[in-house]
């Protein structure tokens, strides 16, 4: 059987999640090698040795990203943690010639079923992605609605599966280039971290597969069309087995909230999802979430705030006034 690496990326503050993901993967797919890509420095903090996950931890400074310092300078923690994704893919394919498949999962995902079908699809396709929505969502003012996904990306980049090949390599190289400088959250300029760039996959490549199965990447953005049930100790989404669940925006400090990024799905109107979240919060607690969550990422600079904001405003005033007069209609 071909060798597969699954990895996640996080800073120390998310190690409880990353460990939980690793445990879930080990139960269902022990043959898959799991690596935690750490955008942080373990040697720069005092950390209880007995709490550190026993998984392979691959710190970002070990994979040799050219221009990494500039990326740290320009990106916030979300931007930085997402921008390094293709560089990890690249590292694994370069350094493990026997590895055929490399799969990325966000740390806040856990696996519920063997990934047999996915691995089978990887023998046929080089790129597998999951859309946020596979069927239309009613037009309303809840967040997220379809316009939010048009802004931030059609596919969710909490998951990306690849197999070794020319097109997956082209994707990784192109994506690396873009994410060095263009992994910003800047909606009016079309940017949303690493995710929105993947919109182009169906235009640039042929060897891809869009996995719309109900059991894949289940999260707040698609729960409105996906019902959770338990039968004989197994979880189902509608009529399909749950493959993996993405607890995006769920936090132990506020377990009454499904996700801090949305207001569409609530535990009150969706009692079916509650057991999945209770199960997850137990796991996170056992994996020292409360301990890790307060660590600050080594690579994130303190926020820079400009001085003399008011002085600048006063100095600018006459010029702004003049500009607005000139911009009025009829001035020639």
């Amino acid at each position: 059987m071909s060798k597969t690496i699954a990895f996640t990326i996080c800073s120390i503050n998310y190690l409880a999640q990353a460990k939980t993901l690793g445990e879930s993967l080990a139960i269902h797919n022990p043959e898959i090698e799991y690596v935690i890509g750490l955008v942080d420095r373990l040697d720069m903090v005092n950390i209880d040795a007995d709490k550190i996950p026993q998984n392979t931890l691959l710190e970002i400074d070990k994979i040799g990203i050219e221009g990494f310092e500039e990326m740290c300078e320009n990106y916030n923690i979300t931007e930085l943690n997402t921008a390094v994704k293709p560089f990890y893919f690249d590292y694994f394919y370069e350094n493990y010639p026997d590895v055929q498949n490399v799969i990325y999962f966000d740390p806040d995902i856990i696996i519920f079923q063997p990934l047999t079908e996915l691995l089978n699809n990887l023998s046929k396709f080089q790129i597998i992605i999951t859309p946020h929505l596979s069927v239309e969502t009613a037009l309303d003012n809840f967040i997220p609605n379809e316009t939010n996904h048009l802004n931030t990306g059609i596919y969710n980049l909490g998951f990306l599966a690849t197999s070794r090949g020319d097109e997956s390599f082209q994707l990784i190289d192109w994506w690396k280039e873009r994410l060095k400088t263009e992994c910003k959250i800047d909606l009016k300029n079309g940017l949303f971290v690493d995710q929105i760039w993947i919109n182009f996959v169906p235009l640039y490549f042929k060897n891809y597969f869009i996995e719309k199965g109900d059991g894949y990447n289940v999260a707040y953005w698609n729960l409105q069309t996906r019902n959770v049930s338990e039968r004989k100790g197994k979880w189902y989404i509608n009529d399909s087995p749950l493959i993996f669940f993405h607890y995006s925006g769920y936090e132990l400090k506020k377990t009454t909230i499904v996700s801090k990024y949305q207001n569409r799905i609530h535990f009150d109107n969706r009692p079916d999802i509650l057991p999945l979240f209770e199960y997850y919060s137990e796991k996170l607690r056992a994996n020292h979430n409360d301990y890790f969550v307060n660590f600050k990422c080594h690579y994130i600079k303190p926020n820079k705030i400009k001085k003399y904001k008011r002085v600048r405003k006063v100095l600018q005033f006459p010029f702004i006034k003049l500009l607005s007069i000139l911009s009025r209609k009829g001035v020639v």
Partner: protein
Amino acid sequence: MNIVYTVCTNNHLPFAYSLGDSLKKTNPKYQFVIGLVDVLPRIVFQDKFQIIPVENLSLPYFEELNEKYSVMELCCAMKPCYATYLFNENADIQELIYLDTDILVKGDLSRIEEYLKINDIILTPHISKPVPLSSHWNEKSFLNAGLYNAGFFALKRTENTFRFLQWWTEREHKMGYYDFEKGMGVDQLWLNFVPIYFEKVFIAFDIGYNVAYWNLQERTLSKIEGVYFINQNTPLVFYHFSGYSLEKPKLISKHLKSKSYLSDNQDLIDLFKEYRTLISGNNYEDFRKIKPAFGKYIEVTEDSLVVSFIKKGLLKIINFIENVNLGYYYYAK
């Protein structure tokens, strides 16, 4: 018989007529219909093509759109409405092709019929290859504006197509604004969802289709014995003069700002020249000044050179004051 339709206001009728003329010449078996989001012009004009004024659609919420949308947003919103109307009014029509008013047909459209034998919805992508970040425009534009160009789509009469049209119409009714920051890009951005939501959607990568400024970097136009070819080997089927203005004849598209003058490819220059002649011949000067009857109309006035120079200077000063290093506070978030 099948229909090709376009949607526009009176001031764009010369473009629509040129499109119709080019279609008649190259694909005479298609009927050409103009959806007019306007009241019929008072200027008497040749009635060689069928014009359907928007009032014929009897859209119950038209007044709402008239109030809230700009002329451009309104026209875009009417595209799916006209498609539904044309299917309903013409029971014998099985296929419908939409072309933007600023398109010129130069080749045989029959391949679309081939595609529609096994597909219901045909779209064309803006680009099919990465564009280097260093070029004077790049891929980011299409992350905002949409992956597929809404200047062309082809539909077959099926339940699936009607489901798509209903979905699109509803979105164009409520959220057809031009507001990228809010995830809206008139009719076009919605198309991003189409290959995911709907069955039998085909993305036509044919290099002869929907050639425009956004794909000229991967498609070279040349004229061989009087016929236009793309990349020397594929006949040009239709060119989309998106953002082209007769007032600035050397600028390939206003969406590209500078650096995009028609200078290096004589065959491309010829095509644009041919287009200008066609538009002028279709009474451009008479129609261009007609104010659209519906939608918010913003007259575009150009700054004089002096004003635009002063404005640029002012912006530079404001920017300088904003960014001059007077020191920073640091605090950890």
